[in-house]
């Protein structure tokens, strides 16, 4: 009867594909959406619209990263902004100090975020899941305080004058171009995250989420699997940080508070944990809503808080839930996989 006693929430069982379901699962939706997204600036291209659209797309990247950790692997991370900060600061500092283009800092950012993921994940991932939540929160605060205290991060006012995006000598910092580049990069990242979720590692993540002990018993090294999810999330967050630094040209600790972490979590929960289209939708929603309701900024977090409770009670799978059924081909492929690999059949109650 305690919190941990209950059976895991059953994934939604399909009632047979309705029209909406078929639409939601259509393979053409992605391409259509990408085209519409890229075409959006042709409809509206004021600096303001481009700015918030770019912010929204960057936020999508963050949410997809957190989705790997929370949605796929079931680890509650309340300090995700820490990785966002690590990425933004690393690229900003390198670009400013070494005077190299922002994109050239990406390899360094990946290395640093992987290290950050290991440093934060290694001691904490052995803990009980609910301890993990608070510890990640503590780590988020530590990163922000450290950035605020050190000289190399510019102290409380942060670093500024970060060069815009450019590649091969071509300036990409024009708002429209920056938007398009961001859309393409994020689209790739989203695609890659979704693929990762369906890979062998992704199935292991979901297995760990559904039943950690069963996963362990089936020969999954749960600690390593969890750590890998954590690192993947960190890299996504860090890359979002690079885009963020390029967009704002200034990075300061005020952007990486607990509220930021909580907002990303809300996007993931609202959209549907583990469901990539849902999370993308949730991120766009969470990121655009405050701009549309600028004058009600005071009510925003109150509404978000209530929404979190309501969603968890009424529709815990989110607005656009993950469907755990796999197509025959994927399932067949995994069944013929080498021994020792978790069979997809045992995954949850699907």
């Amino acid at each position, binding site marked *: 009867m305690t919190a941990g006693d209950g*059976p895991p929430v059953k994934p939604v069982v399909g009632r047979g594909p309705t029209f909406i379901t078929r639409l939601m699962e259509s393979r053409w939706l992605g391409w259509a959406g990408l085209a519409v997204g890229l075409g959006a600036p042709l409809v509206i291209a004021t600096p303001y619209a481009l700015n918030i659209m770019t912010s929204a797309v960057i936020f999508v990247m963050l949410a997809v990263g957190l989705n790997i950790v929370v949605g796929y692997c079931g680890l509650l991370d309340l300090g995700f902004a820490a990785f966002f900060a690590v990425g933004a600061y690393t690229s900003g500092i390198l670009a400013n100090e070494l005077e190299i283009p922002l994109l050239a800092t990406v390899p360094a950012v990946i290395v640093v975020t992987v290290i950050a993921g290991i440093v934060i994940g290694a001691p904490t991932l052995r803990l009980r899941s609910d301890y993990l939540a608070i510890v990640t929160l503590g780590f988020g605060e530590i990163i922000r*305080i450290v950035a605020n205290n050190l000289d190399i991060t510019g102290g409380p006012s942060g670093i500024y004058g970060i060069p815009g995006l450019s590649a091969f000598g071509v300036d990409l910092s024009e708002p429209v171009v920056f938007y398009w580049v961001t859309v393409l990069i994020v689209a790739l990242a989203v695609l890659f995250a979704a693929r990762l979720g369906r890979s062998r590692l992704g199935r292991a993540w979901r297995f760990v989420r559904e039943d950690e002990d069963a996963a362990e018993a089936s020969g999954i090294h749960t600690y390593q699997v969890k750590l890998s999810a954590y690192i993947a999330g960190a890299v996504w967050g860090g890359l979002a940080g690079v885009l963020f630094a390029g967009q704002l040209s200034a990075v300061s600790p005020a952007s990486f508070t607990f509220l930021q972490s909580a907002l990303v979590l809300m996007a993931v929960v609202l959209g549907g944990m583990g469901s990539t289209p849902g999370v993308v939708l949730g991120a766009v929603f969470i990121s655009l809503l405050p701009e549309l309701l600028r004058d009600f900024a005071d009510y925003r977090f109150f509404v978000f808080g209530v929404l979190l409770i309501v969603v*968890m009670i009424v529709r815990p799978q989110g607005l656009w839930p993950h469907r755990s059924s796999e197509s025959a081909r994927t399932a067949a492929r995994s069944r013929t996989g080498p021994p020792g690999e978790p069979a997809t059949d045992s995954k949850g109650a699907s």
Partner: protein
Amino acid sequence: MSQLIWNGLFVGSFYALVALGYSMVYGIIKLLNFAHGDLYMLGAFSGFAMLGAMGGLVKSQSLLALFIVLLLAMLTTGLSGVVLERVAYRPLRRAPRLALLITAVGASFALEYGTRIVAGANPKVYPVRLGGTTLHVFGARITVQQLALVGVAVALMVALHLLITRSRQGRAMRAIALDPRAALLMGVDVDKVIARTFFIGSALAGAAGVMAGGYYGKIDFLMGFIIGLKAFTAAVIGGIGNMQGTMLGGLVLGLLESFGTHWLGGEWRDVFAFGCLILFLTVRPTGLLGERVTERV
């Protein structure tokens, strides 16, 4: 040196008072009530509102007024805790932990920003302040008001201890913590006992809130966030779910912070405190006094 120790113990007794609620709830339903710190805030604000409503009495009998307000605020926050459990947590008692934790984060936001909408973003100043003379004990400056507050905190903790170990209620709580299903079979009204636990834990946090308001004077709607985090840290250091351990953890954390500020400077204090938390969780996840708990699945 003795000043550092006293500072640490004083702050630590606040931490302990808030941490107890955390610990009790966790001990019984294994839920990290993320909104617990905000009940502390709610206590401070309801105390503020009551003092405003009492008007004249506050001026003439400020100590008495503060004491009455303390009791009323405990009642208010206690009931808020019960409502919170009923509305947000009970429907999810069978859901996975992740869902409960997210709900708790949502509840925390709703309480913080709900208070903000009602009371405004500006900090509020308590109309009554505890004043008192200063004593010198072993070279440390101790004010009478500090002693009074620590006295109240200790009294509350002792009362809680007696309640849990001596009363029927306490036995029911311990039974549920041990095995909720068996307790149910034995005729314990589990829902009722959980509600009571929330009432007691929240009331303690509310008491700490009013005491902080009366002592420091300034309250604002985000005051519960940091202390909630610190209270959790204290509970973990002492052994979450274990009452004596939690009290000890609060004091230890207060001392750690006091010395951390002294050694490293104020800007690194929280890094030091959270660093200790992570260290504790890695090295001794059961805390100072917690018994070895095997993770149930």
